[in-house]
Structure formats: C-alpha cells, structure tokens
C-alpha cells in the first residue's frame, strides 16, 4: 500500500480519522475558519439556518480588509453589521480596518500552524500552504454552515507535485516562478487538486516570498497548496504562536497524479497579459507597452520585500504615471516606515493607502478609467477585475511594476536602475 500525501494526512487529522484517501468524502473540522467584509452577508445566511449561536467563537477570525476604510455608506453599513455580530457572538479574533489583508494578518498572528486545517470564505485561502497548513477557500453559504456546525464536507483531492530546483537570479521573484507554472500548465492545471510545492529551491525562498506561490495556486484552480515547513517557518512562528503544533509531511511513497519539475535558475521576469493569469510572456516581449497606473499590493504582492524591491528602483527618482502602494498589513507598513522604504516610495511620488485589498477587486483606491492600462503585483487580471471592463491589466513582480511606473510603459528594472 502506498504512503499518504499531505492532503490525505491533514484532512484525516481534521476529520478525526486515522487515515483517508483521495476521493473519500469527509466531515472536516477546521482548526480555524475566517471571513472578511463578506461576514455581513454570511450572517444573513447564518440567521436563515435557525442556529442562534456560532459553534465555536474561539476558532473564528474576521478581518475587515476588502474595502477599507469604507468607501461608501453601503460599505460602512456592511462593516457596522459585522462589528455588531462580532460583539454579539464573542468572536475571538477580530481585526479592524487598517490591520491588513486576512491571509497576511492570520499568518502574522499565527492563528494557524503547520499541520492544521483552515477554511476561509476567500479563494486565496490556499495561501496558508506556506506554513504547511491545509488551506481551502469556501463560499458564503459554506462559511455560514461552518459557523453553525464547525464542520464541512470535503472530498479529499488527488495531489499534483511542483518540484522546484536551482537558484533564482537577482531580479527574479517568486511571482515569476508562479507565472511560469501558470504559463506552462494553464489556469485549469490544478483543478480539483491539491498541490505540493517541494524541492530544494523552496527553502531558499524568503518568508516574504514563499506565500506568493501557494496564494496564487488559486489561479491554478487548486483546492489547496502546501510547502513543507522548515526551521525558518518554525522560527517565525515561535514568538507569535499561542499553542503547540505538529507539522505534517507527505510520505515518500505517496501517490501523485503528476510531478512538474522546474529549474528556477534560468527564469527571467515574466508578465501575464490581459485577461488571464496564464497568458504569460517574457518581460522583454511586453516591454514598451504604455501603462497609466501601477499598483503594488494585495495578498499576493504587498509584503515588505515587494515594497523594498520597488524602493530600490525608485529611490531618488520620480514616477511618470501614478503608482499606488498598499501594504498587505500594518506590520508591513510599519516595517517599511522604520527602514526608510516607505519614505523612498513617497518621495518618488507613490500614493500610499491603508493596508487592505485596495483596487484588486474593483472596490476603490485606484479604479482605472476605460482604456487605461494597469500593471500590478497582484494575482488576477480578469476582464473588469479592477472595476472597469475595458481597462487592461498586466501582472508582474513588484520590481517590474515600479520600473514601469517610472517610465509610463512596461519596463525592465535592470535597465532603469
């Protein structure tokens, strides 16, 4: 009999079973469930169910992040309803406007730990693979059911492996690794599957860079993603965590549907063209494309090292078009303020906004006009994503966004420094 994948082990543990296999349907009890600005809508579904109290308020987190500070009265009302619900139900982990984006905040607060299972009403919940946790996005009705019962049905997914070897060249970031995977295997390459991201290149990625790949596995269609946690992860969690944990690792003889090998040594910066994250070309093929706006931010590309990479390019210069920088969390913003990165960005003409999702999903803080092109360090460039349907969006790493904002056209950081 073959060994077990990470998904099989983690879901068996979360279901209280000794073992599980791909294809089994389990009732899974996550260690943490979370939602964000959609909590007001989830509350309305929860109330329909007839349950009066949430099942376990200690295992719940809510962040306000998708439209913060509230841009309209309707958004403000939405936030007010959430605050009232948090107080009424005694939700243990609530993060106000300005604390940051759910995935970043929950990581910083160490609310989820290696070997655990987390479900969020947000597709990028695959993010928590960077901590060696099983993260899965769910819909609003499923989150209401989780609030009420603490459990949810899950079909254990088959697993695909991505094995990374080699060493990244300077100027090439985790974002480029993920765009290469999407370009090679397409946006449906991970459909219905869990993805294990393994190989010697994983431990070489900094802790800021690691989440990019499991986060964007949402764009790959994956149900969940996993990186084997190493000492760097354990050290990060040590001062932050409130409980013990037991990491899980897949067995060497586990069954995999497919293994995709990528030597990252030869990678160069990449760009995803409108309107899909797998429309990937070499940066040099996109050079010169006029853009009217740059945006550095989101749960994919708004961490400290993204801001620092942009600051290295912009220091002492002036952007030619508007550049919006939105740190993924207050911790990121504070660190950037302390190291001078923030001052470099402001002096170069960047607009800084409250930690949160910003214009990523078209709510506010940088909606493009029709025909205006944006280049962003985020994860999605679908038609209309930023609020305007005929405004093209290009995806790249943060350094390429900064270089492009400097020139008003898609540019190579190596040529502007």
């Amino acid at each position, binding site marked *: 009999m073959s060994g077990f994948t990470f998904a099989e082990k983690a879901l068996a543990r979360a279901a209280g079973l000794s073992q599980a296999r791909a294809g089994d*349907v389990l009732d899974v009890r996550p260690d943490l469930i979370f939602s964000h*600005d*959609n909590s*007001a*809508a989830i509350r*309305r*579904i929860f109330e*329909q*169910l*007839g*349950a009066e109290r949430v099942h376990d308020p200690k295992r719940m987190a809510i962040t306000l992040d*998708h*439209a913060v500070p509230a841009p*309209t009265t*309707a*958004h403000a009302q*939405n936030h007010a309803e959430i605050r009232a619900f948090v107080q009424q139900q005694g939700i243990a982990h609530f993060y106000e406007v300005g604390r940051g984006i759910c995935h970043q905040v929950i990581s910083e607060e160490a609310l989820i730990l290696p070997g655990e299972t987390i479900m969020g*009403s*947000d*597709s990028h919940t695959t993010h928590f693979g960077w901590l060696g946790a099983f993260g899965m*996005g*769910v*819909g*609003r*009705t*499923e989150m*209401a*059911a989780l609030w*009420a*019962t603490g459990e949810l*049905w899950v*079909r254990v997914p088959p697993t695909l492996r991505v094995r990374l070897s080699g060493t990244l060249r300077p100027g090439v970031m985790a974002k480029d690794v993920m765009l290469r995977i999407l370009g090679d295997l397409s*946006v*449906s390459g991970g*459909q*219905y599957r869990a993805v294990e991201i393994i190989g010697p290149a994983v431990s070489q990625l900094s802790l800021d860079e690691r989440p990019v790949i499991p986060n964007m596995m*949402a*764009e790959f*269609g*994956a*149900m969940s993603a996993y990186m084997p946690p190493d000492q760097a992860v354990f050290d990060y969690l040590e001062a932050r965590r409130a409980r013990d944990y037991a990491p899980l690792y897949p067995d060497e003889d586990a069954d995999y549907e497919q293994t995709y090998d990528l030597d990252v040594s030869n990678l160069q910066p990449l760009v995803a063209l409108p309107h*899909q994250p797998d429309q990937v070309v070499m940066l040099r093929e996109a050079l010169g494309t006029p853009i009217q706006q740059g945006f550095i931010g989101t749960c994919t590309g708004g961490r400290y090292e993204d801001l620092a990479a942009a600051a290295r390019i912009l220091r002492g210069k002036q952007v030619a078009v508007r550049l919006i920088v939105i740190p993924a969390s207050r911790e990121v913003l504070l660190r950037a303020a302390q190291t001078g990165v923030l001052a470099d960005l402001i002096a170069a003409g960047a607009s800084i906004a409250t930690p949160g999702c910003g214009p990523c*999903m*078209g*709510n506010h803080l940088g*909606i493009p006009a029709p025909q205006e092109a944006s280049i962003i360090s985020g994860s*999605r460039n*679908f*038609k*209309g*994503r930023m*609020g305007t*349907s005929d405004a093209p969006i290009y995806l790249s790493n943060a350094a390429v966004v900064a270089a492009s904002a400097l020139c008003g056209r898609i540019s190579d950081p190596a040529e502007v420094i």
Partner: protein
Amino acid sequence: MAITTHRAWVYGDDVNTDVIFPGKYTYTLKDKTDIAAHALEDLDPSFASQVQPGDVIVAGRNWGMGSSREQAVTCLVYNGLRAIIAESFGGIYFRNCINQGLHPIVIPGAARLLHTGDVVLIDDEARQVIIAGQAFAMPPLPLSVQAILEAGGLVAMLKQRFQG
C-alpha cells in the same frame, strides 16, 4: 414529465467569476433582483435581459474559475437557471452550485455540439442529458453531496437540522 426541454446559453473555456458577477458589486448589492440583473455582465451583456426561467448554460472547461464569490452562482439561480452543463468547473464554484441547489453537470465536449438558443433535454429519471440528439449520462455525485442538491441546497438541508 420525465424529460424537460431547456434553452441553452453556450460559452467557452475558463470563464471566471469576475465576468460572471463583477467584484465591485459583491458588498453592496443584496436584493435578488439587483444581483440577477448583473449576471454575466462582462461576458455577455445580452444574458441578464434575455435569460428565461428554465434556461441552461452549456460551457467548456473550468467554468467559474477564480474567486469564491457565491453571487456568481446565485445571480444565475435568481434568474431561474435550471442547470449548468460544463466540461469542468472551478472547484469552489462547483461546491457553491451544490450548496445553492443548482445542478452542475459535467459533460466533456458539450459546448461544441450546440449554439446559444438550441435546445437541451434533461431526463432526470434516466439521469441523462440529450444534446444534439446524443445522450450523455449525468455523472453520479457522492451520496451525501447528492442529498444537499436534492434538499435544494445547504441552507435548506441545515434548516432541517436546526429547525426540525
């Protein structure tokens, strides 16, 4: 009436939730009529004004990829859509369909066999879909998942549990 007749709206591969229901509406629209009015806004502007109860969508690979937003399913439910037939679905989208009582039917190649406005026959008793004269079996769902669909969705099922 074992066999029912449905008008098809036919679309391609990799249709994402942003074009099915734009993100900018997700925290402000609450009314069912308003949500229904923006269905497929950035994919097919004619859809919301012309769709009729009982219609079906027939699509290619990976229908509903992208965000977890449930309105990408409910905007279709509120328009009275009967089912979505696709080569494959985004994982969260598939679950959202089940939980809203909207039947996601996996049939490879279906979208290549017909055009928008053509008719699809659904035979619930024989568990078959008939497209362009060809019969395709509906793939079975796990029993516990089928039970959610038959209850009319996850809310209806949990109401039974909490309200008896």
